[in-house]
C-alpha cells in the first residue's frame, strides 16, 4: 500500500490511510527522505490518524524519519495519534522520545511554522523571514 506524499508550501505531508506492513513503512521512509532533498522542503508531517495500532517497528521508523529528515534539513512532526494508541504505546514503552507529536494536521502545520520561524531567526537573525 503506497502512502501518498503531498506537498503543501514548504512542507511534505504523508498521510497514512491504513495499516502498513514493515516493507510499506520502510518504503515510506525512503520515499520521504528522498523527497525532502528533492523538493527542498523545511518540514515533514506524518499523519497517523487512521492507525489504530502502532508497533515497535512503526515507532522506530517514525523516529528514524525524524532524525534522517533533520539531517536533510527538515523538521518532522507526527500528528493524529489516537488516545487509545497513545496509551498502549506508553505501556509498551514506545514513547517516541525526541520526536515532536501534536494533536492533528492543523496543529502540525502551526508547529512547523513556529519551528521554521525560530530556526530562521536562529541561523540568520538579521534577515526577516519570508513567512508568517
Amino acid at each position: 500500500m503506497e502512502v501518498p506524499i503531498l506537498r503543501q508550501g514548504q512542507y511534505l505531508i504523508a498521510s497514512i490511510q491504513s495499516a502498513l506492513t514493515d516493507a510499506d513503512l520502510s518504503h515510506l521512509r525512503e520515499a520521504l527522505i528522498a523527497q525532502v532533498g528533492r523538493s527542498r522542503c523545511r518540514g515533514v508531517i506524518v499523519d497517523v490518524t487512521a492507525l489504530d495500532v502502532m508497533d515497535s517497528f512503526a515507532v522506530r521508523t517514525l523516529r528514524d524519519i525524524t532524525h534522517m529528515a533533520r539531517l536533510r534539513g527538515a523538521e518532522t512532526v507526527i500528528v493524529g495519534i489516537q488516545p487509545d494508541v497513545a496509551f498502549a504505546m506508553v505501556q509498551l514503552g514506545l514513547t517516541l522520545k525526541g520526536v515532536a507529536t501534536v494533536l492533528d494536521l492543523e496543529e502540525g502545520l502551526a508547529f512547523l511554522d513556529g519551528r521554521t520561524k525560530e530556526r530562521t531567526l536562529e541561523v540568520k537573525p538579521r534577515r526577516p523571514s519570508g513567512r508568517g
Partner: protein
Amino acid sequence: MADTKKSTSVTTRPAEGPGGLSESSAGLLRELVAHLRQNRTQLREEWARRITRAELLTAMTEEEIFAEATAVYDNYVEALETGTFEALQAYSRRLSERIIPRGVETDEVVGIVLLLRDVLARSLFNKYQDNVEKLNRILDSYEPAANRIANTVAVGFVEERERIIRQQQEAIRELSTPVLQVRERLLILPIIGVIDPQRARQLTEQLLRAIRANRAKVVVIDVTGVAAMDSGVANHLVQTVEASRLLGATVIVTGLSPEIAQTLVTIGVDLSEMATVGDLQGGIEEAERLLADRAPPALQLRELPPETNR
C-alpha cells in the same frame, strides 16, 4: 405448571396428597399455621415488645416497629403456609429499601427475625408442653421453614445494602475524575483521594479523550488531594504524561506533597521527564506562559536560548 401446583397442594392440603409422611408433616404445618393465626395479636405484640426490650431498630418509633412487625408476621405465616418465599423476598427487599436509609444495621434485621422465631417457638412449647412427642414433630416441620425464612430476610437485606454500595461506588467513581477547561487549550485535572490501578487507568483515558476533544495544549495535573503514592501509581503518572505528549499536550504536575516527594525519590521512581511545579497556582502560571508563546513549547527538539523566542 400443573406439577408445581400439585406439589404446593401436597404441602398445604394433606387430604389431596399421596399420603404417608408428607401428609402428616403437612398436617402439622397446617395446625401450626392455624395456631399462629389464632394468636396473631398476642404473639405480634409479644414480638414487638421484645424488639423494644432488646433495643433493636432504635432508629424507628414504636408505632413503626409495630406496623412493620405486623407486616413481617403476616408474611412469615404466609411463607410457612405456602412454602413459597417469593412474596417474602419481595417484601424484605421493599422493607430494606425503606429502612436502610434510616441507618438500620444488618445485625438488627437478623436479630428481629431470630426474635420472631424464638417468640413463635416458645408459644409452641407452651401449647404442646403436655405432649412432648407431638411438640418434637411440630418443631421438625417448623424449624427448617423458620430457618429458611430468617435466611431469606437476612440475605434480602444484605443484597439490598450491597446494591446501594455498588451504586454509590459507581457514582463516586464518575464524580472523582473531572477534567476542567480553565481557558482555551488549558485543562486542569485535580486528583483527590486514593488512586488504585483501576482509577488511574480511568483517569488517563478520560484525560486523553479530553485533550483531544478540547484540543488542549497544556494540562495541569494537581495531586494536592492525594495522600500517598506508590511506585505503581507514580509510573502510571509518568505514562500519562508521555501519552499526553504523544497527543501534543504538555503536562505539568503540581501539588506533590512532601511525603510523596520523599517516597518517590526514596523508592527511585524516575520523574526527571516530568515538569513539576509546587502548587496549582504556580502550575497555571507556568501553563499560561507556555500558551503565551504562540510558538510551540520547547519539546526537547533543539535547545534555544529564551531570547530568540518572539
